[in-house]
């Protein structure tokens, strides 16, 4: 088990190295960052001076080597745009993004799993049909449109909730709702399909035959087995959400990493792009690891240390 963990964490280093090289190349291939950072009417000597100040006059391998050396010391450079350490900018925003992501996942789990379970055991009924339609709508709604619609309704018309920014928990409601609509639709459908599948299995018949109540059969036997794929998808969704939802962050002016990343890409703010990718990449890998460990709990048949 410990060997497995060490192996996975070592794997993380390779993933991050590969990602950092990729980011480096892609951002450089897409145009000269200095010319995007400087206005057209900047004088050539100023442009060259700024290029030197940013260290962008060096050959790419040299730049990458410097980046690696700094990164090993925990420094990810200073944002070109904000003249602040890129790591600090990302870490400032990460809690906001994490809060939004976790709230969204909580809403998703709180609504999606019970509803999925409920309709899964009533397949073919009117309720099942209605929920299926609703979830279909949920996953089809563009979040940009939904976000603006929610703002118009709850902030503009009803004046119940604030439209944008983040000052108190109230500000969390609309953006997390916007994000949760999609993930809840997705999870509900997934749980429903898995429950439907599991309920046909022999061990469920056995459980029922032993005289267990329907409640226990569903919540202990059916749900637990249906959760494997749900947990996988939730993990991936959480990873995506931690990368920041650019659209929702833009609509609600949510101070998260997604918008920071997009602006970083648009202005070729290399240190910020690198910092976001590395940190979000690390989180993504760690979440996947956590999901894999969760499988152990959900399904005791799964083991990671065979041969030992």
């Amino acid at each position, binding site marked *: 088990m410990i060997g497995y963990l060490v192996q996975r964490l070592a794997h993380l280093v390779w993933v991050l190295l590969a990602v950092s090289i990729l980011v480096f190349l892609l951002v450089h291939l897409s145009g000269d960052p200095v010319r995007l950072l400087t206005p*057209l009417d900047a004088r050539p*000597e100023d442009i060259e*001076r700024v290029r030197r100040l940013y260290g962008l006059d060096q050959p790419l391998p040299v730049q990458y080597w410097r980046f690696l050396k700094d990164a090993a010391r925990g420094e990810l450079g200073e944002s070109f745009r904000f*003249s602040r350490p890129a790591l600090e900018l990302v870490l400032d925003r990460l809690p906001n993004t994490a809060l939004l992501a976790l709230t969204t996942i909580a809403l998703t789990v709180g609504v999606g799993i019970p509803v999925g379970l409920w309709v899964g055991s009533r397949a073919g009924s009117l309720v099942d049909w209605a929920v299926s339609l609703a979830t279909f709508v949920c996953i089809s709604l563009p979040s940009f449109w939904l976000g603006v619609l929610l*703002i118009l309704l709850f902030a503009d018309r009803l004046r119940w909730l604030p439209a*944008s920014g983040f000052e108190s928990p109230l500000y969390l409601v609309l953006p997390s709702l916007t994000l949760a609509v999609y993930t809840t639709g997705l999870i509900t459908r997934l749980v429903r399909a898995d429950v439907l599948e599991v309920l046909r299995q022999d061990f469920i018949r056995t459980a029922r035959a032993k005289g267990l109540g329907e409640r226990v059969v569903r919540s202990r036997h059916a749900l637990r087995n249906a959760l494997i794929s749900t947990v996988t998808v939730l993990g991936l969704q959480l990873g995506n959400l931690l990368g920041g939802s650019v659209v929702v962050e833009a609509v609600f002016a949510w101070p998260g990493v997604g918008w920071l990343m997009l602006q970083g890409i648009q202005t070729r703010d290399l240190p910020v792009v690198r910092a976001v990718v590395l940190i979000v990449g690390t989180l993504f890998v760690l979440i996947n690891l956590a999901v894999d460990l969760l499988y152990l709990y959900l399904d005791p048949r799964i083991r990671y240390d065979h041969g030992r």
Partner: protein
Amino acid sequence: MGDGTARPRLTRRDFLKGTAVLAGSGLAADALRWELLAAPGAAVQPVGNLLIVQGVDAESLDPHVTTSGASKGMMWAMYDKLLERGPDMRIIPWLATSYRVVSDTTWEFRLRDDVYFHNGEKFGAQHVRDTITRFKSPTIRNVYAGQLRPVRDVEIVNPLTVRIHTDGPFALLAEVLSIYCEILPRAITGGEVDPTRRAIGTGPYRFVEWNPGQRMVMDFAERPHFSGQPRVRRLVWRPVAESATRVVELKTGAAHLITPVDPIQIPELEATRNVDVITFRQLSSQIVVLNSLKVRAFQDARVRQAMNYATDVDTLIRTVMRGAAYRLASAFGPGIPGYDESLRPYPYDPDRARQLISEAGFPNGFEVTLVTPEGRYLNDRLASEAIAGMWSRVGVRTRVQVSDWSPFVQGVLGKTHDAFFFQQVGVLLDATVAINFDSDRKGAAWQGYHNPEANRLIQDAIKTMDANQRNEMYKRLNQIIYREGPWVFLWNQQGVYAKQKRVQGWEAHTDGIIRLGGIRLS
């Protein structure tokens, strides 16, 4: 303030009226009267939180590093420059009460005696000297350092007078100092305080906190500002990227002043009871640049004129822009030196266009790719597609290529686009004409246009100390550009602000940068 003593109070407007009379060369000195407002009793206490929502946040807290209009507005609430601009872009006295040209290479600035930085330092000549030295310093990421490159030395004549010596005649010094070079305290120029963490200026508001991407907070400075005491206690600036959200923030009272406003939302805002919409004609020119390095036909002035005749700008403004634009006759609109009101826009005349193209030796027309960014300028793609249709009708078979901003800019710099939808012309005209029209310098946005007289005018204007004479030269240049059409002249975009009715005492500036002036909440 707040000390209960009866003392005459100056509002910003009165200040401008008074100081403008001091005018040296070029300072506004019109029908402005000196008029003191005697406010008996206690001074007016600044009240309320003013919430300003813009599309983007400041790029930095260091005023010499910021470039966008949105950041400059924030910086100028805390920092002052030697000179400022009025709403019509005319230069007005600010930290300098007056200036004069001593010789071709020497300017003298007299400084205010009643100004203190927020950390208590008294403003004086040494600060001007140290700030200009820092502005030019190669270690600061200041992309505009070159604007003061001709400055050789700042001589301190006495604590309230400086003489700026330049290498050769540098006619634009006053213009540059009214846009760039916010004056810093010794705490910053001496390196004690990091200006990216803490702002210390002489402005009407002092820095409280900045959380990049979220909010910048400023409180009124206890010592009354020379332009008039602030009437608002606290300023909160927030970036909100989405236009629809900004509008809701304004309607619900979570913002008092918002910019930019999408013209589509103007009717909705005008129908809102407590909201005012403020529109103004922006300075920058929306144009299509014709690249004669890439398209041989564009080397002939007749073809370039034909492109202007072939573009039905009035219809574009009416339909694509929904009226939210002002027709340009030539390269520069009003408010820019060299603007010539006698020039008439090219009429829409497709027959004349066809004839000119034929005369130039292209009876069967030619092919062009019109490159446009999407979402960078208002309705950029839509307008480009309409223009392509109009051009195709006169035999210039035009394909529209929508480009991401980064490759778009690379194409402009690499001069590889046939033609592109673009915005140019800023307050500092010399920079614009130099990068666009000077075939000796072949600047960033220059696309093959060549006229020796234009080159000479551009190069001489910057050395011409007399403002009127310089203006005449730019006028002459504008006439040449008009006649030879290296650009297809389209429009000045409409700038739009929206504010709550209770926000008063505020005026929009045509450069689109917020200057708070006497802004207050009623």
